[in-house]
């Protein structure tokens, strides 16, 4: 796992973006960028250079699930590892995200340990 990889954090709440960024920094990932919904995230992703996407689900403008689908539908971005960090906990939603091709799913409120574990698991699979 490359600690210098560029991570895009997408959440409409700035406090949550700060928390995730701080946790990522604690895990050694300092190269992060932010977006506040799918609409602002997509151009950043399309511009290239992002290695890992961490996104919320429920956001105004464009939701995380729509962002996930848009990324998977784009040949340039379809292999992007995506971790969803969301308060949405309905079984049907988790299944929907899995079917849309999410790599990991963390429900809020979460712990630093959970985030670390899920990120490690995602990159174990990719590197392995």
């Amino acid at each position, binding site marked *: 796992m490359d600690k210098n990889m560029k991570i895009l954090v997408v*959440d409409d709440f700035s406090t*949550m973006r700060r928390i995730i960024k701080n946790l990522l920094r604690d895990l050694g990932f300092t190269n992060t960028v932010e977006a506040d919904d799918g609409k602002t995230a997509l151009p950043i992703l399309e511009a290239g250079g992002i290695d890992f996407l961490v996104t919320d689900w429920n956001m105004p403008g464009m939701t995380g699930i729509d962002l996930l689908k848009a990324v998977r539908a784009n040949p340039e971005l379809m292999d992007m590892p995506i971790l969803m960090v969301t308060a949405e906990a309905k079984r049907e939603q*988790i299944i929907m995200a899995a079917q849309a091709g999410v790599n990991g799913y963390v429900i*809020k409120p979460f712990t630093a340990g959970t985030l670390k574990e899920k990120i490690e698991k995602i990159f174990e699979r990719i590197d392995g």
Partner: protein
Amino acid sequence: MTNDVRLALAKDLVMALENNDEAVADEILDKISGERESQLFQEVGLLTRQLHDTMASFSLDSKIAEMTENDIPDAKERLQYVITMTEQAANQTLNAVEGLLPVSKELNEQAELLSGKWERFLDREMPFAEFKDMSSEITKHFDESKQSLKIVQVGLNDILMAQGFQDITGQIIKRVIDLVQNLENSMVELVRISGGHVSGSKKTNEPALPGPVVPGIDDKQGEVASNQDDVDDLLSSLGF
């Protein structure tokens, strides 16, 4: 039809009958019964409209009753959970700060003491025996600093994590605001109906993205993951 008009028509009818004028008599009778019929129609129309209004206000009444019975207590529980969460966050932050303050005070005091001694050493005012003591004190201080800074790191992380309440409670409060909005719409509707105007009522739906699970409210039917383990189990059952 006024009394005068009716009286005049009756007199005309009597006259026509006395004169054996069948055509005129029939015409007058038709006129009287026609007038009656159109009055009856107006009456039925009015009753129909009143019935319709009453029915509409009945269904609106039941909507408001439903809100009073279910949605408002539901919202109260959600807001109660907001209080619980913000209280937890505040306590978590305060606990961390209270744990960290003595640690930083202790480190500060040690540093002050040692820097004073270090000054004296630089000014060549320190006897060798005292220098030996200071050396071991400095070694001890470094060890303690490493331990203490680890504690500070953990405490700061706790404070950081406690801020997550803002996102969760924000989403819960937004949902309650939506309920208040719906209630307001219904009240406006009711006022409009009692004022004699009827229009279709809007439906309230379960939001597509219900947001944070509120314990005791959203996890009753077992269709939600109440913690990360549930999510992991579900995903692994899907072959994840």
